[in-house]
């Protein structure tokens, strides 16, 4: 078992004819992901890495039965890509694109309120269930099949955590990057709920960062509901206030969203916090062996 993606996932790549999308389409296929279609307006009828390209999502879904999409289109067009995917009734949309205007994401979030579609991201590395399905931009070789769920706002810190787990012999059930934007689709709580109900997930690592209050809300939820051990890490202890640390959402404003506050609330909820980013795996291992 796993969450979000597995062997049954039939993927469509939105913006498949772009250079980044082509490169990762190749890597995803090599990993074993079942890519059934690509969409680029005006490029219908072409193929990329043997994958048929369609002009619209509706057509791609109708002709191939795709049930998930990944978006690599440029920031100014990405919001429309999410809307198009949702309108085509696809179950899961994973948006890799960074720098989407916040105003666009406010509209997207509203549009998705009464839709069945789940959005992961934007500005995220994607989702992987090791040995079954890799969607996004993460390096496949660091993952091992296993029982730890990973959820993170940061792409590269997800890789770091996964790498550490694999080196310690602890595989992953699914690793989910929820993205670094202030307005996003799936939250920490959504993913934690999924892991809580997934019989193959035995423990979870949750990686947060400064800005917003998603980590605090998730910690409250963990305290009340989580049946499995949770380890955590928050980056940005040394980040100066008022500065946007790369991610649009990573900013301490008005004294809110500090790493100290998040760590305090997470510890109070029984989450084991790693002292440094290089001990995330070790912290999880110690927790699982208790």
């Amino acid at each position, binding site marked *: 078992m796993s969450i979000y993606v597995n062997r049954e996932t039939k993927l469509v790549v939105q913006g498949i004819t772009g250079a*980044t999308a082509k490169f*990762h389409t190749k890597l995803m296929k090599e990993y074993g992901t079942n890519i059934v279609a690509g969409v680029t307006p005006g490029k219908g009828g072409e193929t990329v890495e043997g994958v048929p390209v369609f002009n619209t999502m509706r057509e791609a879904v109708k002709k191939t039965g795709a049930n998930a999409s990944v978006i690599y289109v440029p*920031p*100014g067009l990405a919001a429309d890509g999410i809307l198009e995917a949702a309108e085509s009734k696809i179950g899961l949309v994973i948006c*890799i694109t*960074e*720098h*989407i*205007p*916040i*105003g666009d*994401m*406010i*509209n997207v*979030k*509203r549009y998705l309120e009464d839709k069945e579609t789940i959005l992961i991201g934007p500005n995220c*590395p994607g989702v992987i269930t090791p040995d079954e399905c890799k969607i996004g*931009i*993460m*390096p496949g070789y*660091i993952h091992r099949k296993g029982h730890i769920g990973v959820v*993170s*706002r*940061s*792409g*590269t*810190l997800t*890789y*770091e955590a996964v*790498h550490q787990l694999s080196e310690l012999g602890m595989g992953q059930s699914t690793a989910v990057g929820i993205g*670094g934007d*202030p*307005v996003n689709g799936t939250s920490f709580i959504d993913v934690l709920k999924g892991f809580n109900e997934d019989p193959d997930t035995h423990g979870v690592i949750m990686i947060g*960062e*400064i*800005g*917003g*209050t*998603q980590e605090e*809300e998730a910690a409250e939820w963990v305290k009340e509901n989580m049946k499995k051990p949770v380890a955590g*890490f928050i*980056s*940005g*202890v*040394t*980040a*100066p206030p*008022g500065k946007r*640390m*790369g*991610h*649009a*959402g*990573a900013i301490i404003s*008005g*004294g809110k969203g500090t790493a100290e506050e998040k760590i305090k609330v997470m510890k109070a909820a029984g989450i084991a916090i790693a*002292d*440094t*980013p*290089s001990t995330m795996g070790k912290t999880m291992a110690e927790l699982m062996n208790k």
Partner: protein
Amino acid sequence: MNIHEYQGKELFRAYGVPVPRGHVAFSIEEAVSHAKELDSNIAAVKAQIHAGGRGKAGGVKIAKTHEEVRTYAKELLGKTLVTHQTGEEGQVIQRLLIEEGVDIEREYYIGLVLNRETGRVSFMASKEGGMDIEEVAENTPEKILYEEIDPLVGLTAFQGRRIAYGLGLPKKAAKQGVELFQKLYKLYLQTDASIIEINPLIITREEKLIALDAKLNFDDNALSRQEGIRGYRDESEEDPKELEAGKYDLSYIALDGNIGCMVNGAGLAMATMDIIKHYGGSPANFLDVGGSATRENVANAFRILLSDENVKGVFVNIFGGIMKCDVIAAGIVEALKTVEMNVPLVVRLEGTNVDKGREILANSQVEVLSAFSMDDGAKKIVKATKSPQ
């Protein structure tokens, strides 16, 4: 992106939000001539810098005569103003806003900002105008009125009325208020603003609402479609290194330590700073090269890092995903062809195309201390920058 108060007021005027008459001045003579044109009993001389707290720091003066305008303009122009938002180094005043005086009956606070919890724009208002709104939110949260805006319908008239009545505006002003609030939301939406704050919004004895201040901030991600807003950019208000980094699509923030960091991904970049600190070192910067950086961008990043005189060592920490390790390695090699490197360099590479990247470094003339993990790299660079050279 930040803009100046006088630019914000230009936008207010364009959207029909009343502001006092006024002009920007770049020199003492301009300041005096604008004051004469205003023909007002009193004139405000307001320092224009991209930071709040100007009033408390002495950046806003009230002049009763044209001679006083001259005196204040002379005092302020070229002066370094230090407010609670500028940091110790302060900000040099290069522009002044010369504005007519207005009769203030009462002051209010108005703000539009993204509410990250709901993913919607939140309209905030308070009777505690002129006060630091963060303090009000902290100490007396009940004094702030909130309206969440549904993007489907925008700020509705009934929400506007709720705010107007909540603030206790007199009947005539309440009607004007509802229109004003809706105009502000329209401005927020159409310019891709991320913050609009009026502190204070004032009501005159004649029951007329006027925006006495204007603080506007815009979503950097949307600037490519906001030509007019882009034109308001004042680069002299920004850190020169951050500005240069921005030209190469790099996210760079100067800090006060001595270990230069080059990392891919914002989370890993922050975590790299954290682990350097954990081992007793001090990061000189935050630098995220992003996912789509070219070899040239990486080379430029490296040059910017080394241009900081405080840098006593460099730690490159890469976990390739969308970013490829060979691009990073090639960029470092290229940068070091033109820039001399006299400080230790620790490189940790992992992820996409890692073997190619390691090979490029191994076959180059670049002197590199290789690290096999983030932990190892952080320890090595802290040690290398502490030992006598």
